[in-house]
């Protein structure tokens, strides 16, 4: 087989083996490096967002004013103020409306897909929901702007159709796919033995769902809703285009409910809209920053707030989902 003489041949085989081992080691270490990259990136995100926002935290930051004041005047010439209460409430109200729209429909659809329809229908539904999930958020924003806006004006007689209701419905539709998918998984994760036992006792499908499946899938459904909330809080382009973008708290102090026809502004939209105009200024010679630099930095601090909120939501939802898997 080996055309070469003995020692040369054995040297070549050994060389080939060493080469193989070296290349394999290289690949395996590369794989390991990529594997831990996710951890590096999560820390990287936190680090770099924090790094840009840090000067604001050291200088102009006052936690009480930042979270509890509705005055957001970062570009005011005389009196710059950085309060994000209005944006917090804006994000909160849009998310609330979105969940009011999305949760009942999504859970209904999740139950239908998991328990009431045939295999073929399920396949088709899942494909359509996947396509729904694929629509880019800027297209949703466009729909809110061009379709929902006149529709709301026509239906309610409001002067402007870009408001909490508009953004809530759009963001609600955007959160539907993730809630349906997770909810369906949770329902289908209910052990077959429960279902068989109930069916053997003569329960109809609906009784089964109401008395056995929903209680058993409760925490999974909660996780589904949480992930929907996470999606809604982090949504940017659609709310930027649909909320009307005015700093406003949609309460009038009388009714316990807020005005869904008021325009608001969210945390995400604030960053998206103002980052383009906020200059990144270098530090002065004496270690202080020019006052105009705080605007840019404060937007990063809003980013930190968003990161923290979604971090908590995602970890909680993940723990719930993991718990279900383990039990199963």
């Amino acid at each position, binding site marked *: 087989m080996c055309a070469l003489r003995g020692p040369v041949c054995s040297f070549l085989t050994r060389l080939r083996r060493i080469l193989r081992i070296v290349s394999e080691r290289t690949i395996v270490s590369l794989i390991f490096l990529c594997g831990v990259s996710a951890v590096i990136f999560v820390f990287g995100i936190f680090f770099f967002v924090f790094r840009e926002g840090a000067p604001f935290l050291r200088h102009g930051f006052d936690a009480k004013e930042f979270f509890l004041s509705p005055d957001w005047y970062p570009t005011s010439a005389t009196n710059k103020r950085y309060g994000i209460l209005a944006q917090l409430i804006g994000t909160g109200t849009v998310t609330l409306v979105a969940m009011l729209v999305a949760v009942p429909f999504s859970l209904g659809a999740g139950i239908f897909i998991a328990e*009431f329809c045939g295999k073929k229908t399920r396949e088709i539904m899942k494909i359509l929901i996947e396509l729904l999930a694929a629509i880019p958020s800027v297209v949703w924003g466009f729909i809110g702007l061009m379709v929902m806006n006149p529709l709301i004006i026509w239906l309610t007689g409001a002067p402007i159709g870009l408001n909490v209701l508009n953004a809530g419905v759009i963001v609600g539709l955007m959160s539907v796919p993730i809630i349906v998918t997770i909810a369906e998984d949770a329902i289908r994760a209910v052990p077959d033995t429960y279902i068989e036992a109930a069916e053997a006792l003569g329960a109809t499908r609906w009784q089964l769902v109401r008395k056995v499946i929903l209680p058993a899938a409760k925490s999974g459904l909660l996780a589904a809703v949480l992930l929907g909330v996470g999606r809604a809080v982090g949504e940017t382009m659609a709310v930027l285009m649909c909320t009307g973008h005015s700093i406003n708290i949609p309460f009038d102090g009388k009714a316990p409910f807020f005005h869904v026809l008021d325009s608001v502004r969210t945390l995400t939209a604030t960053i998206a809209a103002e980052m383009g105009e906020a200059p990144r200024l270098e530090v002065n010679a004496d270690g202080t920053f020019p006052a105009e630099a705080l605007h840019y930095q404060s937007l990063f601090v809003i980013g930190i707030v968003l990161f923290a909120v979604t971090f908590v939501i995602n970890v909680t939802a993940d723990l719930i989902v993991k718990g279900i898997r383990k039990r199963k």
Partner: protein
Amino acid sequence: MKNHGNTKNLFAATELINKKLRAQRIVKWIFGLMSVAILIPLVGLTTCLIIRAWPSLTWDFLTDVPKQGMRSGGIWSALVGTMYTVTFSLLVAVPVGVMAGIYLNEYARDNWFTRIVNLAVVNLAGVPSIVHALFGLGAFVVFAGLGKSILSASLTLAIMTLPVIIVSTKEALLAVPLTFRMACWNLGASRWQTIRTIVLPNSIGGILTGIILQVCRAAGETAPIMFTGAVFYKAVQRGDLFPYKPTEQFMALSYHLHTISTQVPGVPESMLYATAVVLLGFVLAFNTIAIVLRTRIRNRKKW
């Protein structure tokens, strides 16, 4: 037991059973209608968009560059920019994501470290796109000194799409039975040889599906490219395939749709709709390819 032996009565519907079945039917209808309701927007809005876009949907619209301050012409500059960023971001995200998926499914042991990595993947997937944008601005544009450019935007998109590629790779690998791996190990194959010869060839379809889905996501995202490289307008030759250098700023379809619909007054309505339809069509077409691919893999089982 009065009716004992009377089989007719034993299975006859009683009032209670009728009530039960009626409730069942009603509930089924309600849930069914809810399911249809969430899908109406998909079908209804798509149709609505296409109808309104129709007058502008021409070949010229795709290949021409914007003219007269975006109020006429086409979307070529934006289309090419989107292709560039998507391609560059995949070049980074696919190798890293696939290898990370391989690590998590094939090498990682069940310990605290692996749990942290998995948690990081979940979190990365949940970080809002605007925070990714801030990260891209802080890390690539400012810190790495890449400036606002195709490179910065692509890297930002890559990190955003990474977790989904990791998860879909992991799932595709998981579908290959463990017994195949054991058989190979027993034949003297190393882990990597096993992965290369048996595991990857049998999961490549699933991995590919995940990648195609990421193409859609990367193409549709707007927020992450807003501060990292996308610009309002850039002069480009009509039909030019290589108009941008990687270090230059660029136009992107998603950002273009945002600017012309919110910041440019007087754009003909059908042009706005046409831009939305092209973006939507691009995304849905790729998604459909991925779904068809996945169905075909599922039907062609090798074991």
